[in-house]
């Protein structure tokens, strides 16, 4: 009598396998104590909230600086995390021999890559959510302190309701949530780009260097394109800008924070197009990473 469990046929694609790899990737990254940066983030937002109060600035300035510093810090930390941690994923697996053990099993290379990327996306999601929660808590704390001071100061003023309405508008601008989502989409794109670079890169340093270079090129690409279209430069410059625009992502499109904090509002259709573009980049860069990785001699 056969006591062995029934053999399940091997499937070409298994989400369970991808999930297992991504879970392990997340665990590995958490063990690297990457979340310590959250302490610095907390100090930054508390510091900026207190600093503006000491300077005795108008409340509009205080909220704006708190929002700018918090969202800026959120952006910097997630960019660093996405680039540095992703650049280390493949070299570390090669060094630990985990990659060989995994690929010796019936795990297709694209599942391995997807698992790694998904683990990174989860880490970025957790980080963004924690930072957003801390930021919103800081905003609420600031709002309550400013609101109670305002009510005390203007208790007899007939325009107190309009002052409080203005305070609400500055404390919680409508565009904050789309801004945070745009930051997240941007770092997903960067993480995927870094993974793509690491599939053909020879070292960790090279991957990090090239990723940051791509980030800077992507940040100014839109300006270069505007220049090309408005100033009508020579053929050589036009060709160069065109090539850069073909290869690199226009990261400026994901920078919604600066203008939203200043009072701009992004329309839903425009925001959805930006999100769609971000996911298109993630898909294409993942595909290219897979093409290179699938042929790579390990």
């Amino acid at each position, binding site marked *: 009598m056969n006591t062995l469990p029934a053999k399940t046929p091997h499937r070409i694609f298994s989400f369970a396998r991808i999930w297992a790899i991504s879970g392990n990737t997340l665990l590995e990254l958490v063990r690297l104590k990457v979340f310590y940066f959250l302490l610095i983030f907390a100090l930054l937002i508390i510091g900026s909230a207190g*600093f*503006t109060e000491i*300077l005795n*600035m*108008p409340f*509009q*300035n205080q909220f*704006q*600086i708190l929002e*700018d*510093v918090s*969202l*800026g810090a959120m*952006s*910097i930390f997630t960019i660093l995390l996405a680039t540095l941690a992703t650049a280390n994923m493949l070299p570390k697996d090669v060094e630990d021999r985990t990659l060989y053990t995994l690929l010796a099993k019936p795990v297709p290379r694209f599942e391995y890559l997807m698992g790694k990327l998904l683990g990174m996306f989860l880490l970025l999601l957790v980080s963004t959510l924690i930072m957003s929660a801390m930021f919103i808590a800081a905003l609420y704390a600031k709002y309550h302190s400013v609101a109670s001071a305002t009510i005390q100061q203007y208790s007899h003023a007939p325009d107190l309701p*309009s002052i409080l309405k203005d305070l609400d508008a500055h404390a919680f601008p409508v565009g904050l949530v789309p801004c945070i989502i745009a930051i997240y989409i941007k770092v997903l794109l960067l993480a995927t780009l870094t993974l793509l670079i690491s599939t*053909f890169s020879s070292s960790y340093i090279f991957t990090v260097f090239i990723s940051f270079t791509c*980030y*800077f090129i992507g*940040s*100014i690409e*839109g*300006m270069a*394109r*505007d220049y090309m*279209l408005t100033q009508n430069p020579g053929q050589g410059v036009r060709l160069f800008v*065109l090539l850069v*625009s*073909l*290869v690199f992502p*226009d*990261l*400026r*499109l994901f*920078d*919604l*924070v*600066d*203008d939203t*904090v*200043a*009072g*701009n*509002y*992004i*329309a839903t259709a*425009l925001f959805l*197009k*930006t999100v769609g*573009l971000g996911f*298109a980049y993630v898909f*294409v860069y993942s*595909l*290219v990473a897979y*093409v*290179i990785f*699938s*042929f*790579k001699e390990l």
Partner: protein
Amino acid sequence: MKKQHFIALLIVILFGTAKLNFEQRLSEANRAAFFHGAKLDLSLRQQIGQAGFLAALGGFRSVVADFLWIEGHIAWEQTRWGRMALLFNDATTLQPRNLMFWDISAWQLGWNASIAALNDVHQPDKARRIETQHQYWKAAEDVYLRGIQNNPDYYYLYEMLADLYRDKFQDHLKAFEYYDKAARFPNAPIYEKRMAAYQLSYVPDREKEAYGLLLKYFNMGEKEHLPELLTRLQYLENKLNVPASQRVQLTPEDLQELKNLPNRENISPAQGGGNPDKKP
């Protein structure tokens, strides 16, 4: 070139070709929605330094602008007007959609710095002090005009510029024009149209037009019977020699309001004659 590299490059170029047009259209839509309007040029690079400029280019424009704004705020506390003006100018260049940056920059120049220049104890020549005061008004005007150029979709800076023309330049025609522009915005407070009419009433040869406007507002109901409006109406009726039978009929409450006011005749608000009733 290896096979995989060729395929990878092909995918990147194909996607690049497809996304280029989309990105350009998205970029234009962003600009139409007043996103990414900051002009980061070499003169700004000289003023904010390499690190600041790189940070601004790298997507941290608003943070750099805030730091400059804080520095400018400190310069104001130390009454270093020139440094304050420079720093505020950089902050507004980096954050052109921030109305408060424009407004406070212009207000500091047009009101605080100009008064400080007029009362400058280190400058014995009064003519020079007055000249400097006027230069600060012009600087404030320039800030408001640039602010309007970057924020043409909101009434606020039009109103603030009109205040500057009214209170400092005492140019009632320009004040009227900008209050009138502010009043045309659908979300503008309703006092803008009254402010425009008040200013027009001070402009020679436009009194008839101003009278027509003020009369229209007066006839809109008692909510519009504000002291300034009643005063200007009475002044214009006298000036235009409106027959007694055609003059506005004031209610006892209106007359009481007028009794409580000092005789201001044709004194402009800047001279203490007007009490702009910015009541919504």
